[in-house]
């Protein structure tokens, strides 16, 4: 039913895909999705080490705080993206080069 190696492999694939999305996507919301993938990979590592590495419930609590932080981050990031759309009529992160228009 999977050893520590399997979980770490899955988490590293998720992490790499998240990095790829952050680096190559132009749409701000797609970049946000990449960040969510990275956070999920980190959480999976926390829970895997809680189960196999002897972190026990402390690992779960750390992952819970990561989820809380991800919720706050998503709310603020979407507010920024909607503001960007109102000002530039586009959410492409490579087109937003000016601090003011």
């Amino acid at each position, binding site marked *: *039913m*999977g050893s*520590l*190696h*399997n*979980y*770490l492999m899955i988490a*590293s*694939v*998720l*992490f*790499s*895909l*998240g990095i*790829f*999305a952050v*680096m*190559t996507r*132009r*749409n701000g*919301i*797609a970049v*946000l*999705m990449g960040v*969510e*993938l990275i956070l*999920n990979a980190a*959480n999976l590592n926390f*829970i*895997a080490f*809680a*189960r*196999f*590495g*002897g972190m*026990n*419930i*402390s690992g779960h*609590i750390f*992952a*819970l*705080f990561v*989820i*809380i*932080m*991800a*919720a*706050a*981050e*998503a*709310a*603020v990031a*979407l*507010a*920024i*993206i909607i*503001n960007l759309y109102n000002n530039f009529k586009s*959410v*492409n992160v*490579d087109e937003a080069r000016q601090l003011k228009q």
Partner: protein
Amino acid sequence: MADVIFWVIAGITVLSAFIVVLNKNLIHSAVALLFTFFGVAGLYAFLWADFMAGAQVMIYIGGILVLIMFGIMLTNKIQSVNISHSSMQKNAGAVVVVAILGLLIWMIQKTPWKITTAEEPIQTTGQIGNLLMSEYLLPFEVASILLLAALIGAAMLSRKTK
């Protein structure tokens, strides 16, 4: 049987993550992200983390994914049929990402992980609650302030300036 279910869940997670990253349609990416989150919740269940699996489903799928869907709908015109988005520098990005992935896998294989054997807990919710109210009380309270600040900040940022 459990082995088969584990590999099916792992496959769903990784495949839908690939769709999230590579699909041209933003809505398709968001729906694929739903399956990734569900797959990760299933992996949590395999790791004896029942409370975390529930929290993953409720916060990520019920909260963050709905927020992302709202963001997509608010930043695109409804009339445009294909809400597409492009990537740039795909080849250079792929080279860097494959290098990172190779490094991580090499590290995972090389490291002599210390694996402890633990008893499977009957449920983890009670222990998490006890720890949050004793050892981790200060971070718990700080997290509530963080959420309040994010709430006010997001409302202020997205308000129309008069």
